[in-house]
Structure formats: structure tokens, C-alpha cells
């Protein structure tokens, strides 16, 4: 599969996100879906999915517009993720 450290870390990060979500749900259940600013009924899992998918597009847009390094894309993605978990 031609593994490299960065790709392994990437998948490990996603796995850790899923584990963390499981632990969070166990520790403090998220309850029923809530309606956010986009008018969507989302659970925590949905919000994680929206965050990850949106972040992928943010990184691609950053790469297309500014190239490397991608710290700016990372900062926007984190802000976006926080916003999604808070308001969506």
C-alpha cells in the first residue's frame, strides 16, 4: 500500500476523531439532532462529517489559490470546524 508517515498520521487522525467522538458521546450524550443556522437537523456525527468534507475543500481551494505552505488553509479549516460544531 506504499505507506508513508504523513498518510498514516492522516488516517490515524481520522480514527482518533471517531474514537474521541465515541468517548464524548459516552461521557456526555449529544441527544437528538438539532436545527442549526443552515436549517439542517444535525447530530454530532453529521457535524464531524460536514467539518471533514468542508475542510478537504478548504485545503484544495487554498492549494489552488496560494499553493504551499498550507498553514492558512489549516487555520481556516479549524475555524470552520469550530463554527460547524457551534452553529450548524
Amino acid at each position: 500500500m506504499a505507506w508513508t508517515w504523513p498518510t498514516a498520521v492522516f488516517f490515524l487522525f481520522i480514527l482518533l476523531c471517531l474514537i474521541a467522538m465515541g468517548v464524548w458521546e459516552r461521557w456526555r450524550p449529544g441527544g437528538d439532532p438539532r436545527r442549526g443556522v443552515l436549517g439542517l437537523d444535525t447530530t454530532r456525527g453529521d457535524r464531524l462529517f460536514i467539518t471533514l468534507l468542508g475542510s478537504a475543500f478548504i485545503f484544495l481551494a487554498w492549494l489552488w489559490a496560494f499553493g504551499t505552505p498550507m498553514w492558512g488553509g489549516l487555520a481556516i479549516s479549524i475555524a470552520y470546524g469550530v463554527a460547524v460544531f457551534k452553529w450548524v
Partner: protein
Amino acid sequence: MHKTVNQKAWLFVVPVVGLVAFNALIPLMTVVNYSVQETFGDNVFFWEGVKWFEQVLNSDRFHDSFLRQLAFTGMILVIEVPLGIVVALSMPRKGPWVSVCLVLMALPLLIPWNVVGAMWNIFALPDTGLLGRMINGLGIEYNFTQQPVAAWLTTVLMDVWHWTSLVVLLAYAGLCSIPDAYYQAAKIDGASSWAVFWRIQLPKLKRVLTIAILLRFMDSFMIYTEPFVLTGGGPGNTTTFLSIDLVKIALGQFDLGPAAAMSLIYFLIVLLLCWVFYTLMMRGEEQ
């Protein structure tokens, strides 16, 4: 009341998880790994970082095939959806012709994609095909193997022939589910047939049409076999859609890195569309 907690049911999910891991996750992980490396074969890889992503995102070739893909999808939606509604409206709702119409409508959907491509290739060949000879016989120069416009027309026509039936069947099912009381009320009010369509039938079809549009959008966005068999992406690159371009890069040029980066971008676009599809459907359910 205390609910019994029994987690044993999770064991039943294990085979599915194993299967999905085998047929989806592992290949996806491999593609992610390839997308950040370069290889010249012999299982030797060199780290390249996000170079291939940058290359694909800034390549005119990718932009062109992406735009062609969007244009194709837009065209077939603009043709297939209204045509499907018109055909569904003109189909009988009662009597022996219902079954005949339904079977005729379902026939194109039963034909394998590569057979559809081969059929249309033979049908549209300018010197031997029935369609090609007929158009040329009318004095219009038509050769889909050499003229980009003719190639596009033939590809779009083939897709319309193959997939309009799906819209027809969905719209027909939607029309059949409208209770007679609506039509009776419209008759009492003296509503014209246009008013019946605009005020009763179209609003009632909204849900099935959403499904039809999104299904056709998704399917046409990932189309490969039919145009590949019909035109092979040509003449030149005029009918090279995203999936055809991807196969050319991956298997034709054996550029695994750029092909992997392109497939991930393509996958993300499809995933986004799937999510929109799912969200819209769930919203429809709630309403």
C-alpha cells in the same frame, strides 16, 4: 423506565465492516498513499507531498474535462427531465396499454452500458449506420468520429435514449399517486389543463422529480462506459469527461500519482453531491 442495554447486535455488523474495509477503505487508503508519491514501477516510491494535487488543480486538462463533465450533465438534465415529464403525462393511466408502455419504457434501462455504447456506435456510423447514413442522406454532413459537435450530439442523444425512461417511470409513479379528488376539484373549478399541471401535478411531483434530478446528476457525473465505447473521448479530447480522463492518466500514461490525486478530488466532489442528495431527500421526508 430502565432500558436493557445489549451490545451484542454489534457483532452482526462485523462482516459488513470487514467487507467495506476490504472493498472500499483499503483501496482508498492506497489511493491516498499514491497521491503523495511518485513511482516508476518495481514498487519503489518517492515522496512528493501535495505536488500532484497542485498540478491537477492548476491543470487546464483537468479544468477542461471538469467543464465538459458539467456541460454534459447540465445538457442531459435540461433535456431528460422535461422530456420525461411530457412522456409520463402522455402515458395512459388505465387500460391494457399501461403495461405495454411501462415495458417499453423500462427496456433501455435493462441494456448494459457497454452494449448501449456499442449499439449507438454502430447505429451512428456515417457510412454503415442507419442514423449516420440517414442524416448524411439528408444532405447534412455528419460524422461523429471526426466532428466534435456531432460527437457531442450523439453522446447526448445516446444518454437521453438510455436514461429518459428513468425520469418517465419516476414521474409516472408520482402522477399515479395523485388522488382523483384533486382532478375532480379542478374540473369543478373549470381549471385549464395547464392550470392542472402547474397547480396540482407539478407540486405533487416535486419529491420524485428531486430524486430523478439528483439520480441523473450523480449518474451522468460519473459516466464512463457509454461515451468511452461510443467515441473513446474523441475526436481529440472533445468528449473526454472526468472519468475517461482519469483512466487515460492512470492506465494510459501510468501516471499513478497525478491519477490518484485526481481521483481523490473527483471522489470529494462526488461525496459532496451524495451528501447534498441525502440531505435533500431527508428534508423531503420531513416535509
